[in-house]
């Protein structure tokens, strides 16, 4: 295999990897704060993409507003889900395993409900593609040719991750969110409104995934089922990062994007499908806390 193909595969991998990273971040943010795995992750991405499409085609907004529309829209949906559904589920006391199960099933339900709702619009029956924001000849970066759209994806993704980092590190709300995720009881005692924090977490996570959806929508064919394709890779990315580590999730996402592309080039396209599962099983068997997670927590007796 020529080195050109290798570099191209790498570059393409980084592009898709950035998107997986965003979605993985979305999953990890929720898990870190609430111990819930959001099984609607893929559908959130899908709805984000369709919101973007609605903004672009129906409302004919420019692309900046499209992103805003998608992000805000998904934020609202995520926050509403938390406020209406999760709040109620949590309120039903009986602590322990059963509440987590209930919440996870609720997210599964959310996924199906989202799919079902989007399907109601006849517009979505056909597979479509978002018109790319950036048209024109591909940019040449060293040995590699990148579509302008792809460069935009990487730039936007990196900007978002930076913004997230700054938010969590330096703003008051960001720090309160981190405190809540590390120790909800202590946070409550100090006066942090835990419920509001959880709502914000869901909103931010869904907004992230929504933007990822708009980014994907320009590259891959959009359909109501598109969530299923991306979610498993994002799960694998989150697992690599130990599911509790944000930079780990980013690393995992980009890694997987690269692996996916290289596997597709070197082994077979069929192997691509199973690669994420193998990765998940291997990482969890050998090092459950992922490459970046700390010591696995032991419960004190």
């Amino acid at each position, binding site marked *: 295999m020529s080195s050109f193909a290798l570099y191209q595969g790498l570059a393409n991998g980084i592009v898709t990897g950035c998107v997986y990273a965003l979605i993985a971040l979305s999953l990890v943010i929720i898990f870190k704060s609430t111990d819930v795995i959001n099984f609607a992750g893929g559908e959130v991405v899908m709805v984000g993409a369709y919101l973007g499409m609605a903004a672009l085609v129906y409302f004919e907004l420019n692309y900046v507003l499209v992103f805003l529309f998608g992000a805000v829209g998904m934020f609202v949906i995520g926050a509403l889900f938390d406020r209406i559904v999760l709040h109620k589920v949590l309120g*039903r006391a009986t602590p322990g395993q059963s509440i987590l199960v209930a*919440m996870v*099933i609720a997210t599964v*339900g959310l996924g199906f409900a989202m799919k*079902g709702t989007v399907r109601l619009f006849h517009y979505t029956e056909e597979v479509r593609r978002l018109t790319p924001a950036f048209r024109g000849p591909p940019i040449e970066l060293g040995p590699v040719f990148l579509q302008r759209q792809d460069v935009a994806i990487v730039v936007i993704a990196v900007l978002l991750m930076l913004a997230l980092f700054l938010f969590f590190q330096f703003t008051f709300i960001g720090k309160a969110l981190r405190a809540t995720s590390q120790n909800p009881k202590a946070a409550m005692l100090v006066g942090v409104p835990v419920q509001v924090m959880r709502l914000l977490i869901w909103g931010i996570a869904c907004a992230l995934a929504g933007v990822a959806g708009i980014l994907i929508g320009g590259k891959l064919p959009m359909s109501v089922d598109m969530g299923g394709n991306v979610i498993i890779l994002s799960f694998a990315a989150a697992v690599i990062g130990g599911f509790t580590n944000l930079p780990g999730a980013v690393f995992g996402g980009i890694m997987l994007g690269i692996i996916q592309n290289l596997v597709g080039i070197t082994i077979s396209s069929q192997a691509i499908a*199973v690669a994420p*599962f*193998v990765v998940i*099983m291997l990482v969890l068997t050998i090092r459950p806390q992922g490459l970046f997670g700390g010591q696995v927590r032991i419960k004190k*007796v």
Partner: protein
Amino acid sequence: MYGSPSLGRLLPLLALLVVGFVLPRYVAEYYLYLGNVLMMYAVLAIGLDILLGQAGQFAFAHTAFFGIGCYATALLNIRWGVPFVIGMPLGALLAGMVATLIALPATRLRDVYLGLATYAFAEGAQWVFNSWTAVTNGADGVRIQPSSVFGIVVRTDTQAFPVVAIITALVIAATMYMMTSRLGRDMAAVRESEHVAMASGIDVRRVKITAFALSGVYAGIAGGMFTLFQSFVNPEQFGFVTIVLVLSMIVVGGLGTLPGVLIGVVILGLLPEVLRTVMRSFQIYQELVYGLILILTMMFMPRGIWGFIRGHGQRKKK
């Protein structure tokens, strides 16, 4: 959870056996098909509940074992003419063995990680079903050949119904005995508190592996049952949709309780059919209704329908 199941609880199973032989005379083929499907799901769901609800291990490799049992039974029949009565137990045994193998590394994982790893295994298994075309014929699937059960060739739903009913009744009875036995208590203890279990002399790891193996056997049995009344098996059956469906059945019905699981099977199993008769273009609404059922049940009955009914009953007593 001790002693043995009372006669009162075993009687409905006897009724099931009777129904199994009598109903086919009076009822249309289509309803018998539905019955077969529900009974198969019952066995599948109970198997998953043993692992999740009884032993408290959140593992989702179930569809892999379902598939193994199914393909094994079907292929043993097609390739070597092995009759169902031998093929199904063999398939279940194979599924149980694979489950045990998986359990060895899996039981070292906890919670989230266990769920993810086992789910990844299930998807990996589906990929194998799709790719190992030499054996499974890949995505094209395998055409099931009617099998003989004690001399009678089972070709139709009418003929399959009594056999499926017998298997289901036996499985439920065995489950009732198991849940009230020392093993059932051990599993529940592991679910409730591993520390107490260990301090009480229970080998926690062994119990977890046993629960895994059992769930695999149940899934394998369900896989065998599948071959009795379906004409065709392909990898589609053993993927995400199925595992979510079975999981929903046990959670919506009532995790860890036999009546709950059966309620969940009936409700979620019949849902597509109900939608079909009530709303003509049901396909469109199916996912939405399904999602709403899950959300609403978790909001108002997080312990499942049976948990809700029981809780209500206790409150009334006070």
